């Protein structure tokens, strides 16, 4: 995406702080500015007829927060939640959304110049979700564009419908 390039220029020579987490075998990261807090799994209230990747809503100190299962969102196989499963509560624009990840690793600094544009495909995730790939030592951290993760445009809904139809036949 064009924005990735711009961002890089703007921050050239700087580092960004990233909250890194695991999903399957890959390591992902979101800008710490977007991550509000990381919480343990809590009871999630299922919302019927919501988009499939919408796991439900939780009560976070009196506020209702919708929860997205990133695995479902990325079309990865669902797994049972474990003790290390976490919810990363993020602020995307004016929306507060929690995303379920397999585990949260740490907060790391990634020098801007070490972030490269996303390659075509990563583990089957569409590039639209990916802002770039950050290299730290020998690790590759996939930087997510959370705005895309929560966007439910028509095309996406159609894809969703498709997958549901496929699933039910």
């Amino acid at each position, binding site marked *: 995406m064009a*924005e990735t390039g711009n961002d890089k220029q703007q921050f050239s020579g700087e580092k960004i702080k990233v909250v890194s987490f695991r999903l399957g075998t890959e390591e992902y990261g979101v800008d710490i500015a977007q991550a509000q807090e990381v919480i343990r799994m809590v*009871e999630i*209230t*299922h*919302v*019927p*007829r*919501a*988009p499939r990747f*919408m796991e439900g*809503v*939780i*009560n976070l100190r*009196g506020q*209702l*927060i*919708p929860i*997205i299962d990133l695995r479902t969102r990325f079309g990865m196989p669902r797994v049972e939640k474990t003790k290390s499963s976490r919810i990363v509560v993020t602020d995307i*624009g*004016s*929306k*507060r*959304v929690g995303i379920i990840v397999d585990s949260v690793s740490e907060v790391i600094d990634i020098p801007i110049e070490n972030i490269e544009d996303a390659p075509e495909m990563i583990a089957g995730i569409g590039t639209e979700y990916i802002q770039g790939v950050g290299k730290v030592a020998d690790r590759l951290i996939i930087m997510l564009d959370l*705005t895309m993760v*929560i*966007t*439910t*445009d028509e095309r996406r809904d159609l894809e969703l419908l498709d997958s549901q139809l496929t699933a039910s036949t």
Partner: protein
Amino acid sequence: MADEVFDRSEFIAYFRDESEELLQQIDADLLRLEEFVQTGTPEPEIVNSLFRALHTVKGSSGMLGFVDVQTLAHKLENLCDLLRKDRMPLSEGSVDILFAGRDFLTDLVESAVNQTPAPHGLDDYMGRLDQFAGIYEETSQVIEGKTGSEMDFDAASGQSDVSADQIAAFEAEIERLLAEAGGARPPAASEPAVAAAIAAPEPGAVAPVANVVAAAAARRDEKAKDAKDGSKRAAGQTIRVDIERLDTLLNLVGELVINRTRISDIASTLSRLTNDKAVAAPQALIGPLAKELANSAASLARTSNEIQESIMKVRMVPIGQVFDRFPRLVRDVAKARGKEVQLDISGAETDLDKTIVDEVGEPLMHLLRNCVDHGIESPDVREARGKKRTGTIALNAFHEGNQIIIEVSDDGNGIDLERVRARGIKQGLIGADDKLSDRELIELIFTPGFSTAETVSDVSGRGVGMDVVKKNITRLKGVFDVDSVAGAGTKFTIKLPLTLAIIQALLVRVVDELYAIPLDSVIESQRVELPDVRTVHGNEVITLRGQVVPLLRIADFFELGGARDPEKVMIVIVGLQGRQVGLVVDGFQGEQEIVIKPLSVVVGRIPGISGATILGNGQISLIIDVHSLVSEAYAGGDVARAEYSGV
């Protein structure tokens, strides 16, 4: 440097609210002003009030760097000044140009706040305004003997790119005038002001900063545009609150804090007692603590109830906020249709929830247009019928129990039932031989697409019909009704709940979640043995006091799975406009007052769910939207339709 001090975004919200109020006021003033056109001289207070409102808009927009708003407000203020000083006569022309100016100003404020392009035709209008004012300004300057520099300042104050030089010159001019007037004032003032004026840094700093901010915001907006759709109203909503109501809340919160301290005291005493091996915690010690705790709990309950009530009151605003724009609307529509109409408003001070106030404007506007357009007859016809030439529309609001009633009535034609029947037959809604009661004929006008108007007028036409009004009111959990007497008039009645935020609900269990059903739509709950459930065309029904009630299994509708009880069904009978449907649940959990929280925009609109609430134990319960649940179920053929058509 200006940007450090001004957080513009915060001010913009205030600016929008304030301008909205002032524009309403300007509208009201102009309407009053218009009444004086015949005499040519208006009541001075009206013109002064207009002048002040425009002056305030000018000042505030100037501070925020909204050049267009400032310029137009200045020009209009000028025109009022001419009127005020009797340099320009009050005529239909001058009132019309002020009305048009007020409309442009409204659009400009909108476009300044939302950073959209200026309204179409603005330049034309500004030109017209200049020309109009020019005629009188010249004579005014001759009469007042203004100097060249004064005229420059007058002109400059309407622009936002006023330079520091211009301000300095203006201030120097004041110094000169003060010196001329001679030592009648305290000496301390002159030097500082001038010195400050000359030392003023960064000529014209405000405007460039504003531009940069605007450009940055525009970029942001582009990015966020797709996400923003539909959430326009939700963002940045503000409400003006009576300070007394806030004080009450603050006091209540104070009580909460006191209680918190009491409770933690008790807790720490208790833990000391349990940890202290020496004390065997005899009844004598624990007894008083238990009593203390009970008192605290009672006080907590009382305080939280009061806080809840107070917060509700904070959300309440007078419905006059919506009514205020109607005189103008009625005037414009009446003028366009060649009718004479008087609008009588009462009960503008009646309070109701802010969200409802925001939503009810649209339907009311449509009803009023309808009254002018279809209700009130033309002056000649009225005269021929022995009525006053000027028709009257009454808009009335009042509280009745837990509801607010809004009535819109006119003394016009009434609904022509024969015409409704003819139209209904023509549109295939009823058969030519159908015998319908007056009531049923009136019901016809709520059918989507129905209109008795021969031609679609630009006023109430445009495909927005009574059905839409009814739908909007129903969405607000309100009731909409029409009464009409042929030849004598029509009365629309809207009944709305005072608030949508807190409701009584019946909690039910479906599979393993709790759902809340708003109590206002619940008629009763029933336990029915399975043999009493029959099937009609594959859909389940029960017979209740001789009436056949279709069943809707919530678990099936929401695709929740779960096993069916082989022996009985638990049913909540809900009523929808006189029709009954039985919602099948797995258990009843009692009634409770709940606070409605909207589901996030991220979740989107979900048929059958209107929001969620957090229960006392922190658990979330989804709130069932009975209306959409049932209509969706009918649309999907999930429910027996047979009994649904009867009223």
